[in-house]
């Protein structure tokens, strides 16, 4: 179609900039600039009072060679957490959405609402819930139930026990991980063209599993990618729950995640340059997960 008259309009730079400006300005100041600053600060020594002093790669070198807490606890914890809550949560979100898509509308809507509701709580707002459930003596709900059915004989002090803290944080992470990504997958599943399934059946697809691999996922790759990004970002965002439950640092660094490490150095020790360096590592980790997802689901054209 010829865009004759409209062509003039569609190359209207001035109007375009005017409409974008307010968002772009706030985006630049509060989202883009902080990321750029984090990268710059990561090459400095900065205590929040004196002007930052350039130290080159020193922070990164220290992080790798002499930060025992980071190497021994924070990094392994973070990787474990990201794999289970990020990747595991993503698979779970897909399976649940796949199940829901095969149910009639009424139960589907109710179930989706219930599954989504934990993610509305922003994790942190519900910390009281977990404190009550995981109370460390026999009056705690979990302890009382487990003792009732005879799994344990003595109450477990859940939130200070290094052995249980990380699993608890992971469970809470999974609990609240059916968020926007989950809804996106569900919507994607519901919009797959049904004639594709019929065609695939004729081509020899034999069961639902094959259908999922050969028909469903390929036809909703964009949603899969969006959901993957949301899932991994959400997982890291919720990582702060550990310190809400057990303080920072967590007992024996048992559930110390990379976000807690940043908080620790940034707002407790005021070593801002070092904290910024850890932030950059976090952004890189998210980036790695995202590029793997893009590899898997991105449309190659």
């Amino acid at each position: 179609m010829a865009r004759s008259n409209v062509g003039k309009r569609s190359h209207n730079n001035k109007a375009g900039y005017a409409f974008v400006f307010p968002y772009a300005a706030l985006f630049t100041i509060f989202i883009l600039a902080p990321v750029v600053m984090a990268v710059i600060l990561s090459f400095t020594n900065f205590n929040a009072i004196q002007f930052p002093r350039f130290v080159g790669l020193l922070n990164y070198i220290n992080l790798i060679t002499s930060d025992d807490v980071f190497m021994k606890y924070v990094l392994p914890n973070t990787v474990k957490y990201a794999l289970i809550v990020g990747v595991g949560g993503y698979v779970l979100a897909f399976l649940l959405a796949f199940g829901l898509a095969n149910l009639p509308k009424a139960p589907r809507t109710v179930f989706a609402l219930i599954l989504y509701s934990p993610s509305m709580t922003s994790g942190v707002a519900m910390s009281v819930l977990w404190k009550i459930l995981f109370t460390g003596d026999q009056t705690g709900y979990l302890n009382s139930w487990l003792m009732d059915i005879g799994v344990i004989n003595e109450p477990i002090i859940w939130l200070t026990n290094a052995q249980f803290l990380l699993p608890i944080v992971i469970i809470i992470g999974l609990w609240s991980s059916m968020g926007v990504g989950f809804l996106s997958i569900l919507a994607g599943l519901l919009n797959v063209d049904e004639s594709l399934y019929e065609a695939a059946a004729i081509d020899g697809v034999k069961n639902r599993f094959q259908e999922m691999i050969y028909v469903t996922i390929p036809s909703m790759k964009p949603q899969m990618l969006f959901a993957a990004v949301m899932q991994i970002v959400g997982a890291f965002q919720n990582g702060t729950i550990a310190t809400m439950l057990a303080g920072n640092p967590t007992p024996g660094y048992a559930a110390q995640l990379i976000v807690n490490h940043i908080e620790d150095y940034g707002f407790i020790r005021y070593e801002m340059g070092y904290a910024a360096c850890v932030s950059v590592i976090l952004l890189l980790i998210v980036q790695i997960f995202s590029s793997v997802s893009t590899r898997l689901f991105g449309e190659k054209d």
Partner: protein
Amino acid sequence: MAYKGHRINPKGFEKGQIKIYLMVIPMVLLCGLPIIFIFFHAFKPMEELFAFPPRFITVHPTLDNFAKLLKASRTGSIPLSKYFFNSILVTVAVVFGSLLFSTMAAYALSKIRFKGAKVMMQINQIALMFVSVAVMIPRYLIVNKLGMIDTYWAEILPLIALPVGLFLIKQFVDQVPDSLIEAAYMDGAREWQIYLKVILPLIKPAIATAAILVFQQVWNNLETSNYYINDDSIKALAFYMNTLTSTTTTNTVAGQGIAAAASLIMFLPNLILFCILQKNVMNTMAHSGIK
């Protein structure tokens, strides 16, 4: 019999769905029970909070915990109503600002061709991956440099640009046929008239969805009150409720009842808003993919 391919979104109950119910329901319970627990706990009278062994269900519901929450706030220097006022002011400002700016930007990025539009969209897409807790410190430094510490601005401005919001709205604007805009343009409509009269009415589902997401960001936000505000009188409700649920108070059983009531008050607006707007969400999410 040959496999015929199953139907997604069935109209009614079929036998084959039993399997699916068995798979989904345990997860639904796992997700739902903690939330129901908060409801029960918030309405428990003292003797049931103390009950041993602890009980999940509330037998004699009471508003005691809410009354105590009110009383607790009276002993502090700042009344609960002030925190409510702060939160409502900040939430309304952020949601309104965010929706206005995101829809404007989405319209321009999708329907007006200008230099740099593509790059801007790509940057926004990359920003979906930014974990905001990672950049707390530089953000604080910027807010500080702009002289916004201890003002409402510090609670409002940093939260307005929400990359997911813009992304979802832009994907939705993409669905509006160009011919509609061209027709309006030929009738002599200006850009802002097209934006107001053609685009906005057509993208209501995306606006509703973005509204939910922005609302959750600001209503639950602790970061702004914690780091940018020292003056207690302009801190948000989320901050106050969080002090109630912090370790010192939840160590006592009575404190737990109050904390549960506080959590419920914080959670309910999210739930209500989502229930009202949920129809729009699925409609918007259908276009949410990253290509």
